């Protein structure tokens, strides 16, 4: 008997029915007229950054700048910011809440860990409906149980599940419209990113995957869930358009030896951004496989890269590889944020990304041309810099050893200390950009790793070559480092140091503020210009999500998901000491100014 065909029953069904009933037309809350006209439109999505009354995209706009023009909460008033309501996700599934919420027409949508989705009254915090995905037995997601958010389009809300399924639900009722397999969870695939809607298509990547994974981006018709195109990100693989083979990615064996490109990795696990004017999707790709770089001489394209893709047909417009021939697990998945840069009196259509490898890159987003790269963490030693063409200047002695040259009793080979460590100078948690200050805000971490070949490793009961590593903080007093960086010069304008690693995303506002959370449990507000800490609130558990802000009934609200987890607590050693004693939790917190203050 196939055990995994037995599923856990959805506990959400009963709640769902109850929620649907309370949402009948007689519900007392009057819905704005726009809600009756078919939910979220293409224009709503494109204009999201300029319409502070709602948040309908991951990133507060398709470019993912995470900037809101709202300014009622500013450097002065923020000091009086207080909670308005808190919503608990309930149950035993507390850990790992990395979700960015969405708000539309009086409803706040937030995903929870273990593939859950909640619709909540955005004014009161009362639950409207809840959906619990049924997770199959034997599920093995690689890196924790998180979910980073949902997408709204027309009448539906979309999110991905740990068993690699994409689910479309009616945003009003929580009723499932369709459910599609992104891939086979039995092969280690999962899905944790927030999907993206571009021109009526829902764009997704893949997470996890064991041997056999090749990262790819897929576009589906958002209404039916049917595949429109597929774009594998590793050279030699054929794309697909309207059910037929389209074009090959790169050229076979250009940057890979033998047939290793067939299983070359490059998992596209963190979603992307979109520039509607240029009609380009920007996505990042993960590290190549197998982990030891000596086994795959060459650049290994397009692993550890940023790609610009045409959303209409899935063709690659340009590619830029941040870490060619990666040997340190420097995933290139981190978000590429389009912005307009003023330099030498000209406006450059640029984009920026803070890579795992510790460098902050600015590229021309029209063609992928390299503009600059500067370190955003200290003591980077895997490379001494980035050359004028955007290529790393490697320090060969800090590349983990060649296993075929390994010696000694346990044949570990040379252990190297590399900075940053494999969790990166910045991990998944998104950066923000303020067009007011013209600064990027980067939630970075100062750490390195000892890494060596680990011959005492077994896979399916058979000997295998693994990696052994220990993460080590670079400094004694802090790991987390929130930095404001001027993209035109690469200079650090200010820095806030945090003892524990930073794992939450950024929100910037027209009120001159930067919001982010800490594992220690604080949502904090900083002066966007100076970095001065202006306000903090303890939510009772670690914050590892991206805050949002929205306007409602003439007031500015701020909200954040709370719940310690993610990849950091999965690793021990010195880093664990900085997060010891942090309590679990699973909730959403909404804040606003007291009425009196707001009207002053």
């Amino acid at each position, binding site marked *: 008997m196939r*055990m995994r065909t*037995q599923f856990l029953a959805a*506990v959400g069904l009963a709640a769902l029915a109850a929620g649907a009933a309370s949402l009948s037309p007689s519900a007392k809350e009057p819905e704005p007229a726009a809600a009756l006209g078919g939910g979220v439109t293409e224009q709503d999505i494109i204009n999201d950054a300029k319409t502070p009354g709602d948040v309908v995209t991951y990133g507060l706009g398709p470019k993912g700048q995470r900037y809101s023009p709202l300014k009622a909460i500013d450097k002065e008033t923020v000091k009086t910011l207080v909670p308005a309501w808190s919503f608990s996700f309930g149950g035993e599934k507390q850990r790992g809440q990395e979700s960015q919420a969405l708000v539309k027409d009086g409803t706040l949508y937030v995903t929870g860990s273990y593939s859950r989705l909640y619709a909540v009254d955005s004014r009161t915090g009362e639950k409207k409906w809840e959906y619990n995905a049924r997770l199959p037995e*034997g599920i093995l997601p690689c890196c924790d149980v998180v979910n980073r958010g949902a997408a709204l389009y027309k009448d539906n809300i979309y999110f991905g599940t740990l068993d690699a399924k994409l689910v479309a639900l009616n945003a009003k009722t929580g009723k499932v419209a369709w459910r599609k397999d992104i891939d086979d969870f039995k092969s280690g695939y999962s899905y944790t990113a927030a999907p993206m809607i571009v021109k009526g298509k829902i764009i997704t990547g893949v997470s996890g995957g064991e041997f056999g994974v090749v990262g790819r981006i897929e576009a589906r018709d958002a209404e039916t869930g049917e595949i429109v195109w597929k774009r594998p990100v590793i050279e030699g693989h054929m794309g697909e358009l309207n059910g037929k083979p389209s074009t090959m990615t790169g050229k076979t064996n250009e940057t890979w*030896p033998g047939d*290793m490109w067939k299983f070359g990795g490059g998992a596209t696990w963190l979603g992307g951004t979109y520039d509607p004017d240029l009609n380009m999707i920007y996505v990042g790709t993960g590290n190549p496989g*197998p982990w030891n770089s000596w086994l795959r001489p060459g650049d290994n394209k397009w692993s550890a890269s940023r790609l610009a893709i045409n959303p209409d047909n899935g063709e690659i417009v340009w590619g830029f590889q941040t870490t060619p021939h990666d040997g340190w697990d420097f995933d290139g998945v981190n978000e590429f944020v389009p912005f307009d840069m003023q330099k030498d009196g000209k406006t450059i259509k640029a984009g920026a990304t803070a890579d795992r490898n510790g460098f902050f890159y600015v590229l021309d987003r029209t063609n992928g041309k390299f503009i600059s790269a500067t370190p955003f963490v200290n003591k980077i030693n895997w490379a001494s810099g980035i050359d004028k063409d955007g290529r790393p200047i490697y320090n060969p002695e800090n590349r983990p050893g060649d296993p075929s040259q390994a010696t000694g009793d346990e044949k570990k080979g040379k252990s190297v200390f590399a900075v940053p460590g494999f969790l990166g100078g910045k991990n998944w948690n998104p950066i923000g950009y303020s067009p007011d200050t013209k600064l990027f805000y980067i939630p970075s971490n100062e750490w390195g790793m000892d890494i060596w070949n680990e011959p005492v490793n077994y896979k399916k009961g058979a*000997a295998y070559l693994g990696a052994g590593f220990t993460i080590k903080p670079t400094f004694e007093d802090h790991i987390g480092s929130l930095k404001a960086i001027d993209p035109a010069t690469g200079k650090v304008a200010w820095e806030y140091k945090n003892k524990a690693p930073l794992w939450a995303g950024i929100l910037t506002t027209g009120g001159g503020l930067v919001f982010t959370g800490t594992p220690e449990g604080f949502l904090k507000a900083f002066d966007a210009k100076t970095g001065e800490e202006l306000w903090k609130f303890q939510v009772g558990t670690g914050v590892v999500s991206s805050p949002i802000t929205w306007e409602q009934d003439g007031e500015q609200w701020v909200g954040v998901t709370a719940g310690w987890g993610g990849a950091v607590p999965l690793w021990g050693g010195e880093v664990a000491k900085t997060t010891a004693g942090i309590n679990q939790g699973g909730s959403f917190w909404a804040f606003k100014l007291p009425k009196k203050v707001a009207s002053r």
Partner: protein
Amino acid sequence: MTRSLRRRSLLLAASWLLSAAPALSRPLDEVRADGTLRVALYDDNAPFSARKDGKPTGIEVDLAQALADALKLKLDLRLVDAGENSDGDLRLALWRGDLAGSALSDVMLHVPADRIFAQRNEQIFTTRPYLQQRLALAWRKGATEDFETLGDVGKTPIDVEGNSASDAMLLTANGGQLRKNLKHFKTFDEAAKAFLAGDAPILAGTRSEIEGALSAAGTAKEGIGLTQVKLAGPIKTSWELCGAVKSDSRDLGYAIGDAMTAMIDNGTMKGLFAKYGVSYEPPAGY
């Protein structure tokens, strides 16, 4: 509350009680009282454990049944998917469980018998080993010249399961000279099928896998040569397999080990392997 949810909360209760009342973690007396031995084996791991027409089959499926019989228990078998490493598989199958709250097993087979591995997995206790496993190469006579060492391979293509022990060994052998020879497949089964259909002249795998695949396909042994790999690279070319139980169920581990020893001594073990066309090599020191 649904049945499966109740089972989940039961499991949680059990793990909470673990520290206070070790009896709940199923050492021998608990297993005996229940009358059922829950054994976890790998799925897609022929010739040891796989499914044929939906039914578990293979050497370790038979071994699990024989162990249950020896302990006078009913067998409750589950086939689990292999994860990123054996450490994680033991965590899911024996002591922590999976995300869905599936039932834990009492015993897992096909566990590496390795001192360092055992030390870092302190939540489990390993039984006596029952098999010496070796990496090997099969070659089609006539398609390639006889060879004794990997140096004789030259430019001859090799079919191999990606991310496997053989793959790691071949990728690192001879300073990486064989990398371009390798034709990777997702599973050993696919690699073996390609080899048997005349793809590459050489097939890499464990000796048991190769013999099992040849036997299952009814291939005449005369046409195929089998060479064991001897290599001083970073990858072990030989290791022992044992069973594992939770660390506070040592008495169950001893009982399993004793039953295996008896089966090795009286020839039953050899017979289990022979049924699948696989030669049996007892662990070193036996």
